[in-house]
């Protein structure tokens, strides 16, 4: 029973230009109660936070605590 690749749109977005994960920031990943954010490393070695799991309580600590205002919490599409 292989698993399917069903796509899902995620409610939390990160502005690459503002995110300073490169400098070691992981604040949003640290505070999220559902633990759904991670840091991605692209081919050129630059790092950005992103939402890895679509399991969000739209509670907002990630947005509130981000030092650069890079995070935007939208509502999950299903309940928007």
């Amino acid at each position, binding site marked *: *029973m*292989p*698993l399917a690749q069903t796509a899902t749109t995620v409610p939390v977005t990160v502005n690459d230009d503002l995110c300073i994960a490169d400098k070691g920031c992981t604040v949003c990943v*640290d*505070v*999220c*109660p*559902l*633990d759904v954010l*991670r840091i991605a490393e692209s081919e050129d070695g630059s790092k950005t936070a992103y939402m*890895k*799991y679509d*399991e*969000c*309580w*739209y*509670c*907002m*600590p990630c947005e*509130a*605590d981000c030092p650069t205002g890079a995070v935007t*919490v*939208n*509502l*999950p599409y*299903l*309940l*928007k």
Partner: protein
Amino acid sequence: MDEILDGLTQIDCDILVIGGGTAGPMAALKAKKKNPNANVVLLDKANVKRSGAISMGMDGLNNSVIPGYATPEQYTKEITIANDGICDQAAVYRYAQECYGIIQELDSFGIRFQKDQNGEYDVKKVHHIGTYVLPMPNGDTVKKALYRQLRKARINIINRYMATRMLTGEGRVAGAVCVNTRSAEFLVVRAKAVIMGLGAAGRLGLPTSGYLYGTYENASNSGEGYAMAYHAGAGLANLECYQINPLIKDYNGPACAYVAGPMGGYTANAKGERFIECDYWSGQMMQEFFDELQGGKGPVYLKLNHLAEETISEIERVLHIVERPTRGHFHAGRGTDYRKQMIEMHISEIGFCSGHSASGVFVDEHARTTIPGLYAAGDMANVPHNYMLGAFTNGAFAGLDAADFIADVDYASFDAGEVEAERTRVLAPTKRDDGIPPNQIEYKTRRLVNDYLQPPKVTAKMELAQKRFEEVREDMEQGMYVRDAHELMRALEASTILDCADMAAAASLYRTESRWGLYHNRVEYDRDDENWFCHTILTKGEDGKPAHRKQDVKPYVVEIAEDEKDAYYKQRVGASVAAE
């Protein structure tokens, strides 16, 4: 991160507090203050800085007993009546006597409450009878202030470990088994006393949006407190008294009549008419809400559009920044302006939560469970209508009592086989090559909860639920499959949710009467005080399935007059008022 690693570490502490939301931090602080030499560990599945129901803040203290506004006797009486008399008053009365001291302490932490021009607490009336709601227009300070205190008191904080099973031995608590949510490594914590503050079972029913995490409760509260207490052999009280809340439709956050009510807002039907006299959440109020919808008079709304501009902007300011700050985005997305439209509400999914109802792990007025050395406080313990101040105050009681308990005991020895068995159970989904992912197990369980357990409760439907749950359990135990440590956390939660679903069905079938309005509305039975004026206590039976017994309600501390007993059943607005 998230790669599954093999590892097991054991640590020792005097007091292990599980859950760093609301009750847990206060328990840890009080225990440490009373016994500064004690090694107190506060462990959380998330990060204590931003975990639990109060993650972003709170709009107010819903149940404060403040001298000049209310007395402990009045409060105890009101909560007893709101719970149809099924209430061991000692715990409620002690809370009512001591919560004012806790408010003052929170105030000294820098948490801001609303005060009038004279600097006195500005308490509002929302309940049916008394005056207990203390607004916190700057309630976003609460978690930060609490966290500062934890650091100051040098509490050992362990984040991102999920407790999965309690360890017991020598007839008392011995510690807990925990799993790292990002690496699947095990941590066995030996402790002389354990305090549980793991919050509500918030992922029991499925929200109508279909989004698994679109719950009323903080979705990290999946109900491990209930499942761990159950498997450890503790008693759980009145689980059939579900939590069901009147919420903003789809958004599933509180409409906040508690904030808007004192400023002139109210719950209305489609015609904009008031149909309940009191917006305080209770089973009886929810029954009226349900009847209005069933009677074709819905949707039901929170009505604010008759208020003055300055009142509306103040309500907006509070509701859109403090407790659930995405609420403003939600309304904006739908084009809802409080000045023009009413706010559509609906009935939430079911859950367990004493914060708003009355069910949970059975505790006495010291927050002691039925297992020596094991305490529970907050939404998961059965003290009715706890809310945030109840979590703080009962958490304090647990911490104080645990500090005494550890003075006379050493670690209880436990069977190492228990840890091994738990490792095998936890890791099973990592040992397969393919199978069913946890989100599908969870979705199916919760969808069945909605189909068969949601009130009005029907015997045949609940029995069907039990059959379906057994099938899902078989699938879960034989076929659940995870690819990383994060998914393993979800798998463990799925198993908790299934345990809670089993308990909800069993408890509801056992009490063959109707009680608590909609919360336990069993259509085939009327209320039956002769046979059911009692608690029901659910434990894990010899056969590994839920077992039940009745337990007497303790003699009242505060007497209730015959003509007061049904006050909460007089909720419906009379014809003359409705026409106002």
